[in-house]
């Protein structure tokens, strides 16, 4: 692909949702249909840009990079870059963003415009964080995405999500400020001339002098990953938040936490993640076990799905922390799987729980009789969350398990987590699809909408494609870590 064109596309990736948000925000409050059309166009345009980048970068030997001096006095640059891992993650975010935009509606009808603005801003922040290779730019995107999420989470009927939004927000802020200070410490250790450039810092950093700094980054990423012990916000948020927030949280925020571990900790500190790898591996394993076991005993559908998502991201953290090329590859694939399957599951759960006005699994039975297509499509997501063979979840978990073959204890615990996940996933699906359908207890309004079915279908196709054709990036591949932009 032409260098200038590819750089324009690179900037457009986060800029398009931002421009869409601005445009939707400036539209008259009553132009609901137009606002929705604009939102869809910009979100799908971002996905199209990602596809163009993917097509152009498939055979590229070097990462795509754009660096412009921003605040030279402080050593801050506008440095955007995409390597294979970034391309992978930005594709996930663009797909989930488009799915949330097309598949969800505002919980309160008069909030259409701000719903769209929040979704677009959240997508912009997430895409920005993925492509930022300057630490200030990364922090900016990392922090800015909090604001739309606060509103997306708190805007349901009776503001049920406000408590969850507040918990998410407070935990995020508390962990992010430590990240800020960690970044400043790194910049100080990298010496003069001052720079916030990720790879420049990685080049200059003396590992001995930087010992301990990686811990400043850990809380922020663990929090977004919903990893133990900073996981409590996630089940609450998923149980109480409106559908759009649930989809974006499961599909975007959780995987981004894992990507943060790869993007900052691995790129700057190397495979041992600045001395945090072993602890993070155990935290990942603990999260996977906790998520799987909690899912086994849950009666609330959304909390159960939250447990499954946590377990997947926990395993992906384990893979990223083990540090071998194959485990990291599995970890990245599992992040994508968790994102796609999580987004699909919460879209499904949002629709059926809304139609039944209940989140209890026992209340949502017999779906196969009433909505066989919708229920059937959900199987792909559920199977992937349960890490069954043939799905993206399994394709991601397998390399991680292989990397642990010399550690019997870890392998046993991971296998136990997988068993719990598979069991919880299949059992839940059976309970949802089987049994009798009590039509009089369900909403009389049309559900699901056609676009929700199509969205679920597309997400299911991607999940199965990834499972059957494993194309996750390897850090040892051409530009996963070798080529530095």
């Amino acid at each position, binding site marked *: 692909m032409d260098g200038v064109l590819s750089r324009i596309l690179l900037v457009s990736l986060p800029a398009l949702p931002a421009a869409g948000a601005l445009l939707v925000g400036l539209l008259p*409050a009553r132009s609901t249909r137009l606002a929705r059309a604009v939102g869809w166009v910009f979100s799908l345009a971002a996905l199209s840009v990602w596809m163009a980048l993917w097509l152009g970068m498939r055979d590229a030997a070097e990462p795509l990079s754009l660096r412009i001096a921003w*605040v*030279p*006095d*402080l050593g801050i640059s506008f440095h955007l870059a995409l390597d294979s891992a970034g391309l992978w993650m930005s594709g996930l975010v663009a797909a989930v963003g488009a799915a949330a935009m097309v598949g969800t509606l505002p919980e309160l009808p008069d909030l259409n415009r*701000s719903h769209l603005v929040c979704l677009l801003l959240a997508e912009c922040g997430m895409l920005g964080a993925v492509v930022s290779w300057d630490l*200030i730019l990364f*922090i*900016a*995107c990392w*922090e*800015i995405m909090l*604001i739309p999420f*606060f*509103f997306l989470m*708190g*805007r349901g009927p009776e*503001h049920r999500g*406000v408590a969850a939004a*507040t918990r998410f*927000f*407070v935990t995020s*802020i*508390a962990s*992010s*400020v*430590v990240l*800020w*200070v960690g970044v*400043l*410490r790194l*910049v*100080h250790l990298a010496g003069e001339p001052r720079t916030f450039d990720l790879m420049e810092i990685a080049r200059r950093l003396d590992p001995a002098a930087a010992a301990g700094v990686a811990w400043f980054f850990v809380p922020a990423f663990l929090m977004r990953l919903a990893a133990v012990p900073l996981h409590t916000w996630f089940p609450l948020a998923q149980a109480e938040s409106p559908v759009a927030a649930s989809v974006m949280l499961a599909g975007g925020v959780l995987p981004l936490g894992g990507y943060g571990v790869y993007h900052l900790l691995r790129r700057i500190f190397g495979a041992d993640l600045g001395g945090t790898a072993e602890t993070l591996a155990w935290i990942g394993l603990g999260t996977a076990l906790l998520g799987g076991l909690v899912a086994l005993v849950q009666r609330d559908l959304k909390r159960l799905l939250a447990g499954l998502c946590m377990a997947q991201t926990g395993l992906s953290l384990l893979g990223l922390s083990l540090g071998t090329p194959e485990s990291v590859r599995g970890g990245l694939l599992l992040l994508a799987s968790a994102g796609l399957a999580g987004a699909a599951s919460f879209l499904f759960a949002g629709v059926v729980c809304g139609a039944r006005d209940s989140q209890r699994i026992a209340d949502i039975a017999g779906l196969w009789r009433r909505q066989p297509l919708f229920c059937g499509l959900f199987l792909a997501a559920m199977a992937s969350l349960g890490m069954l063979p043939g799905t993206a979840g399994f394709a991601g978990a397998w390399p991680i398990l292989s990397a642990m073959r010399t550690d019997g204890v870890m392998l046993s615990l991971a296998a136990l987590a997988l068993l719990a996940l598979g069991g919880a996933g299949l059992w839940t699906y059976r309970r949802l699809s089987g049994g009798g359908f009590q039509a009089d207890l369900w909403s009389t309004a049309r559900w699901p909408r056609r676009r929700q079915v199509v969205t679920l279908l597309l997400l299911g196709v991607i999940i199965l494609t990834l499972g059957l054709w494993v194309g996750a990036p390897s850090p040892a591949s051409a530009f996963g870590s070798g080529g530095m932009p």
Partner: protein
Amino acid sequence: MNPALGIPALSVALFWLPALVCAGLEFAMPARKTLRGALTLILPPLVLGGIALAWPAGDGSSPALTGDGYSRFALSVVWVLVFFALGLRRAEETVRADGSDTLLLLSAAGASLLLAAVDLFAVLAGFALTLVPVWGLASISGTDEGREAALKGMLAGILSLVLLALGTALLLAATGQTTASGIAAFLHGRPPGAPLPQLLVPGLALAMAGLGLFAAAVPLHMWFADLADGLPPSASLWLTGGVLAAGLASTTRILIGMLSPLSDHAPPDWVELLRGIGLLALLVANAVALVQSRLQRLAGYLAAGQTGFVLLGIACAGELRGESEAVVGGILAFLWVHALTFAALYAGLSGLAARSPRVGHLEGLARHHPWKAAVIGLALLCLAGMPLTAGFFSRLALLETMVRAGWTGTAVLAALSLGLVLVMSLGLVATMVMRPAPQSETRPWHPGPALAALIAAAAILTMGFLPGGLLRIALRAAEGLLAGP
């Protein structure tokens, strides 16, 4: 220009003449509100022009006053804020003039004297000339709250003056000096371990307490929030933005050169003391702001919290010694952004209520007055140091100096205090956006505050994206201070 005569004469011409002109206008055309308002609004830009053209950027000292780059920068902050405050005044004005404009300009003249003062007696005079008109503004506000606030402010102000006067007298007796540089030279001239004059430490403690009381440093901050609440909005803006900025700039000038020799020669460790007070101010004032329901009182506490950042910056300069320019530059940039932020905040709040608006007045504001809500939201996010607002870089610069000084824990706590502000800010934004609007009549936005809001918001955003210019100018101004007369 003969510096010995030039600076006092120039001060009178530049700073007191506008008050005289304004008094003349109020006397000559008491009922011609629009014309008088327009003419009054021209005065601050004229003063700013005078500062740019005539105020010396170096080598302009008299024994008590100095004209250097530092004072020029700080004066520009103060007079820009006067312009904003006068803009807000236009929305409050009744048909007949009541002398408020003149009092505001008189206070600004006092603050200007304070900013040029290098001698503690001149600082004392600056304190008095700044505060007395503010008491007047509170007294003529015509409300019980205003009168009570005036009383509290007067008592605190008199106490501050007495403490500073006593401290200055003791310092004079101990060292024979009343300028910061003179006292620093006295300390530098003493051999290490030599006994200190007995009156030195009590004198310093009293002088610092006086400065701290004026600058609303915790635990001497209560009067400040009360006075901010009791004043009319324009005067409250002047207090929280202008008076505080002048007090902090003056405190920085006095302490910056004195702190290192003090720590070497005169125990206790003054750097540590200032660091403790700074942290306390940040955490306590911002935490107390979280639970306020009256918005001007809340702004008062937030402003008192900003004092903490500046005190931490001064302490950092004492710790870093040879690298003070960057710290002082950071403080100046911080004060500039502080003034803009409060201008935007008050301009947004303008017209919500006749007197100090409450949080309830913000309910549903985003629907009735979306631009007002946007400006208030922007100011609050700027206060919380969110990226892409000017607040981010101004706080980042100070946090970085803390990390450079090795105060990582302090930096974490300071950043956490920003988290407190962010939690409070998003709570208020949620009130504006999520709560239904009351059915009461909505008043249009007066052109004066609307213009102030437009300018302040544009500046906050511009400096958020392109902070390099501000940081460079602030750094040059800091070099002027540290080069000495």
